[in-house]
């Protein structure tokens, strides 16, 4: 195992090489952001489990592996291979990123409505867009997470989506991040910025899909700005490869009367840590976070959520379910901060965890920090195996024990999947959930 200071030095050296080569040719302000971020990372290094925010998640597998920047790798992939991951609805507004880099050939952007911008962040930043400069890296703080610091330091590509005032986009904009043929451990830092301007409405599907079994790492950051009276539903699907690591921050910033919903589904990777930071920065804003984790084997998924009620009269709902089989492990932290003066806050948090085997484990911790007096904050968590009473009830209705077990487990999943308003996406995920349930039932039947 390499010593911590040496690891930091390696990342700084990687950064220097990157800013001279692959990362060069960007505007000065962009370069300044990166430079500030690498010094931030070099000051803290990787988090340890001594840090309260990282108590349950050990990132040694990231620290101890030498990852090369994936940006340079240009594996070939056919359109056919990509197509199966593209939703029919909005198929012509799909940006495809291969190993972190925008692929013009694999993307299909003909359907993007006039006035709407959806393209490579790198291209847009280089074109001198003031919009990108105004918002990029202004919300996700490098001091919040070493992984956000790394993302900002190695910022090079990702998606930029801008929906202008009064524009309503019916079909979802799809952002597809694929990792292919990583012959050696590589890391990609996809960086996304979504701005939905006043009175506009859109939905975005951000999918991370691994097409390889080997070791690689995706470190993604998405900043979403939802302006006055605008609406954004962001869907996030994590289906990385079995040996992959996935670290991510989804940072939202909402203005007055806006509405933001995030539905995040975690199925893949060996290790996943997703920080969700939602800031309600305008009166009357509403935020809903829904999450479903379904994992098995030795998979580990950690959701670390923070909702900040900075202004009065805002509502937030948070509803996360986890299904853990084999020796998998789930973590949920639900931090709610109500700032002084944020009166009439209404906040509700629910976290249910289903443990399907003796080896599975989940930790759930609500953290309420309330500095206003006229607020309503409720939270509840459940943790445990399948409810035996419910199991018997289903059996008395003729449903065989393993099928009944699956039906009850499916109930946990469908509670979240029902929040997905894109039928095709919902059906696709429903299918994936069922496949896992059936595999689990097979394993149990065989084990008996």
């Amino acid at each position, binding site marked *: 195992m390499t010593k911590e200071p040496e690891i930091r030095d390696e990342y700084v050296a990687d950064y220097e090489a990157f800013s001279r080569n692959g990362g060069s040719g960007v505007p000065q302000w962009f370069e300044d952001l990166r430079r500030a971020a690498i010094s931030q990372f070099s000051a803290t290094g990787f988090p340890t489990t001594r840090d309260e925010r990282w108590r349950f998640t050990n990132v040694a597998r990231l620290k101890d592996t030498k990852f090369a920047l994936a940006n340079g790798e240009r594996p070939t992939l056919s359109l056919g291979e990509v197509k199966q991951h593209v939703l029919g609805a909005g198929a012509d507004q799909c940006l495809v990123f291969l190993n972190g880099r925008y692929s013009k050939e694999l993307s299909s952007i003909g359907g993007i409505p006039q006035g709407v911008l959806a393209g490579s962040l790198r291209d847009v930043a280089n074109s001198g867009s003031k919009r990108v400069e105004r918002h990029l890296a202004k919300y996700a703080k490098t001091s919040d997470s070493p992984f956000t610091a790394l993302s900002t330091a190695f910022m090079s590509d990702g998606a930029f989506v801008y929906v202008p005032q009064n524009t309503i986009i019916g079909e979802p904009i799809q952002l597809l991040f694929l990792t292919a043929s990583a012959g050696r451990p590589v890391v990609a830092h996809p960086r996304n910025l979504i701005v939905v301007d006043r009175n506009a409405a859109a939905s975005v599907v951000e999918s991370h899909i691994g097409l390889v079994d080997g070791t690689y790492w995706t470190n993604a950051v998405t900043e979403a700005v939802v302006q006055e009276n605008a609406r954004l539903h962001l869907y996030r699907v994590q289906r990385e490869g079995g040996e992959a690591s996935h670290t991510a921050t989804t940072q939202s910033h909402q203005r007055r009367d806006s509405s933001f919903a995030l539905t995040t589904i975690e199925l893949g990777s060996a290790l996943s840590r997703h920080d969700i930071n939602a800031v309600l920065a305008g009166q009357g804003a509403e935020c809903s976070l829904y999450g479903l984790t379904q994992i098995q084997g030795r998979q580990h998924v950690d959701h670390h959520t923070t909702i900040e009620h900075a202004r009065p009269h805002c509502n937030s709902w948070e509803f996360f379910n986890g299904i853990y089989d084999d020796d998998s492990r789930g973590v949920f932290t639900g931090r709610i901060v109500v700032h002084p003066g944020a009166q009439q806050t209404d906040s509700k948090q629910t976290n249910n965890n289903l443990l399907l085997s003796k080896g599975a484990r989940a930790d759930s911790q609500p953290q309420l920090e309330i500095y206003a007096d006229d607020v309503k904050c409720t939270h509840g968590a459940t943790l445990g195996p399948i409810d035996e009473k419910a199991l018997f009830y289903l059996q008395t209705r003729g449903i065989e024990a393993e099928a009944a077990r699956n*039906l009850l487990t499916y109930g946990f999943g469908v509670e979240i999947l029902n929040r997905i308003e894109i039928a095709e996406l919902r059906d696709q995920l429903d299918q994936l959930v069922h496949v896992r349930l059936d595999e689990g039932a097979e394993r149990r039947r065989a084990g008996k």
Partner: protein
Amino acid sequence: MLEIKNLHAAVDGVAILKGIDLTINAGEVHAIMGPNGSGKSTLAQVLAGHPAYEVTEGSVTYEGRDLLGLEPEERACAGVFLAFQYPVEIHGITNAYFLRAAINAKRKCQDLEELDPIDFMEMLEEKLDVIGWTDSLMERPVNHGFSGGEKKRNEILQMAVLEPKLAVLDETDSGLDIDALKAVADAVNKLRSPDNASLVVTHYQRLLNFIVPDFVHVLARGRIAKSGGKELALELESKGYDWIKEPAGV
């Protein structure tokens, strides 16, 4: 159809049923009454196959088969249905989805094709019509946030859909208003046929005005203390249970 002989059952090592003898023939309706804690629900749960209840002695034969040797789902398949005193809430699964899973499980053991969602909805509408209910509860998760009466009605709907041969109703009438009570009685009476039978656990004579039983039994301290015809229920209503002392042979 059902023959219970010297049935003893315990839960967590505590003996609760202490020698039940009861025979139910096809075409009959039996009512079971008795004080709180006398073992009525225990008997019902044992018949349905609840794993927490241990049968320590005796036998139950259902249509010539050893009922106690069957898994709960096999009993359901063979036509046994229990309407729970306390129906269970289920996360996420809608009533419609659940009912379809149940009816298809039944069809599977009858070697029939599964019903697709459309055929199922048609069948369901029909059943709802017959018992005079709307489908407002169909898209809600099973029993989740249902009122006491709605949960009981839901049990009856399941019974109506599954058309059991032997229906065991555990206090399905408790907490129902008079219209719902009549609907429950209607549903039970509809199932009445020379091939079917019911065992109705109740505290109230009121229900037995609508479901007229062939036999009434009083369960006390884990045994059948008295058996009689429908007039026994009236007698119990006016006199209470105290006058029944000696267990009577059946």
